[in-house]
């Protein structure tokens, strides 16, 4: 069953090509998604009432609709508005939009979890608003949001495979082409699965390391 020529000459080069595209999707989508989620989360936590409502609506809609549907909508809707995107661009955009909504949930939750007493104590010492946010609120909120946001990035690694649905040739897409050409579905997708397993495992290790590195005794995530 194992055919070295097929694996090393055909399968792995294709998957490595796809892996680069996957990484090119995952890295910018997680960074921009997090930044977007940070902004939206702050607005939902502290913004004017209409901003909060807007942010809540955005989050509810994105979280209520499958990513596959959102991806198709963006892929097919943008050309109607005169914006032409490569499949890559459409996939990236929809990952950012989706990721930002989930991140904003964790950011908002973390901000709201900080007790009034912490803020009062900072005020009592003469901190101004910026100093309070920078030195007291942010370091605590970041630790509370880390597990959720990290998990969201791990989800994103797996969901990046959906880019295949709009013909973006990433890991999944390359695998599908090889599988369809050779009809060796089992071998190909075991290999593709292994690639994802490695990425997810590495990301999990990194996340655990970060959590451990910045853990404070008795400062729980709830």
């Amino acid at each position: 069953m194992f055919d070295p020529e097929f694996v090393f000459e055909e399968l792995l080069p294709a998957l490595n090509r796809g892996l680069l595209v996957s990484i090119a999707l995952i890295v910018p989508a997680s960074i921009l998604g997090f930044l977007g989620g940070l902004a939206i989360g702050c607005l939902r936590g502290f913004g004017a009432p209409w901003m909060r409502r807007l942010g809540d609506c955005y989050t509810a809609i994105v979280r209520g609709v499958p990513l596959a549907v959102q991806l198709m909508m963006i892929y097919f809707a943008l050309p109607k508005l005169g914006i032409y995107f490569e499949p890559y661009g459409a996939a990236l955009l929809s990952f950012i939009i989706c990721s930002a909504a989930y991140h904003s949930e964790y950011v908002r939750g973390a901000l709201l979890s900080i007790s009034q007493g912490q803020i009062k104590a900072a005020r009592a010492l003469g901190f101004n608003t910026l100093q309070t946010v920078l030195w007291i609120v942010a370091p605590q909120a970041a630790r509370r949001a880390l597990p959720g946001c990290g998990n969201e990035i791990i989800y994103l690694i797996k969901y990046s495979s959906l880019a295949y649905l709009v013909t973006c040739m990433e890991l999944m897409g390359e695998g599908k082409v090889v599988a369809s050409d050779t009809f060796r579905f089992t071998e190909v997708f075991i290999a593709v699965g292994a690639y994802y397993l490695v990425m997810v495992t590495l990301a999990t290790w990194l996340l655990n390391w970060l959590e451990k590195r910045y853990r404070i005794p008795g400062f729980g995530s709830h």
Partner: protein
Amino acid sequence: MDSLSVIINALPYILGGTFVTVGAVGAALAMGLCLGVPFAVAQVYGPPLLRRLVALYVWFFRGIPILVLLFLFYGFFLSIGLPVNPFVISCLVMGCTSTAYQSQIFRGAIQSLPSGQLKAGRALGMRDGQTIRFIILPQALRLSIPGWANEFSILLKDSAVCYVLGTQEIMARTAAIAARTHEHLALYATAGVIYFVLTLIVLKLLQKLEEKVRVPGYGTHGSAALKGA
């Protein structure tokens, strides 16, 4: 033909896919529940080897995208000569994934219970199996409802990718009509609304369930997962 009439004409057909979607998700959730509970118990109370095995299973099914698993199972079914039924494969893949996720929800709930619960059961002369069945699980399952509701809403959304194998659910039917009429945006938006409403309905039902099984004064740590939609 304008978008509206396309949607109106297509709606009965797409809505028919709701039954397929709900059926597949329901089957997967049921499988996840039936296997997830024993997996969780095994991972907390089982012998070391069993714990390892469960952890390995969870690692595997949480680390690979459903899309990849669908094709992997498909290929596996082909290669051993089983009949390839897209609906069955979809249910199986989602069921295996959900088992992994649900087992972790239940495990978290079991471990959040005070250790005195097990001790108290033993002190009364119960065997560990009895304590787990009559003391631990009734509490842990109540605590799991919010996480479980969350798992349902994730699974419902993930089920949309099952159309790649040709399972005739909401997404597949939408794609089929879109390819014929080229009204992609309007049709996918319709599908989005159907998923959204479906999520809302089931989350409401689960909230009802949570209220019904609530024990006075026993916190199910706020149903945060339920409120989020």
